[in-house]
């Protein structure tokens, strides 16, 4: 059974870079959203299991998405992926329910380690 993944980033390049960093032989279906509002729409359809979330985006930003998810029961795993690497940012998103914070550019080994750590990838 494949894992349903949502990649949220306003930069198409960033979305591509993240796809490249995912384990190549992992059985997943990928959806993409280019801003927070779109991400929430897709999330509300109920199929998303794992969300890679950028912080700086137009319309609703990453923090806004986390707020909505928290209010609606946080029904998926969120990993924040951002170039904004200040320590406060990390603390804040972890407090808001994200399980991990990965700095850009995403390094495949680091990402896989996080996925294994949380049992998402066996």
């Amino acid at each position, binding site marked *: 059974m494949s894992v349903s993944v949502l990649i949220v980033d306003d*930069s*198409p390049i960033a979305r591509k*870079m993240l*796809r490249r960093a995912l384990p190549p032989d992992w059985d997943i279906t990928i959806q993409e959203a280019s801003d927070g509002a779109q991400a929430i729409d897709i999330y509300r359809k109920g199929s998303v299991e794992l969300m890679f979330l950028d912080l700086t985006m137009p319309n609703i930003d990453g923090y806004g998405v986390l707020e909505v998810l928290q209010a609606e029961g946080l029904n998926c795993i969120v990993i924040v992926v951002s*170039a904004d*690497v200040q*320590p*406060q940012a990390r603390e804040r998103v972890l407090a808001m329910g994200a399980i991990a914070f990965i700095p850009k550019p995403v390094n495949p080994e680091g990402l896989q380690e996080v996925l294994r750590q949380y049992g998402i990838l066996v």
Partner: protein
Amino acid sequence: MINGLNEDQSAALQELANIGMGQAGNSLALIWKEFVHLSIPRIAMVDASRLPDLILSFVGDTAVSASRQAFHGGFRGEVLVVVTARDRNGLAQLMGYEGQLDAAEREEVLLDIVNILGGACVGGIAQQVSAEIGFSAPSLIGEDLDPLDVINPEQLAIDTALSLEVCFQVENRSLTAHLVILLPNNEVGALADLLDQFLCTLEA
């Protein structure tokens, strides 16, 4: 879209600059042992003839100091930094200068600012497109300049330039520096090729 670059290349450049500055912010916070938040740069491609107006719109009608540094290798160009006196003094404190700055120290701070920010930004981009980039020693453009006098577009051998505005948030203070990356017309192609190679690695 950036002049001379297609939509994909422009998007890639923006993302790579974001990442480069993000990494630099993290590294600077470590060195400066302060909570430094380096904003994601606002990137724009501007017509060379509009550069004086652009600099004026960055800082407003106030005297500025400016320095420059050349880079060469995978792609060639110059990076230019413009700061106000207040921001220069704030950055000097972060760099370990103590007390009142004398004239030579004020100049040195300006050279260091362009070296660190230029290195972070251009170096960050170069690293991600796997280009080797070297830097020449930075030099001073001038102090207490009218923002309109920093660049004389008539003396520029280029048509377009890449501008980045970088903000530092340090504790309760906010320091701002403005970067402009100048690429010679014939170097935009070299950068485009590098960006294409990078994009290919994503498609493969």
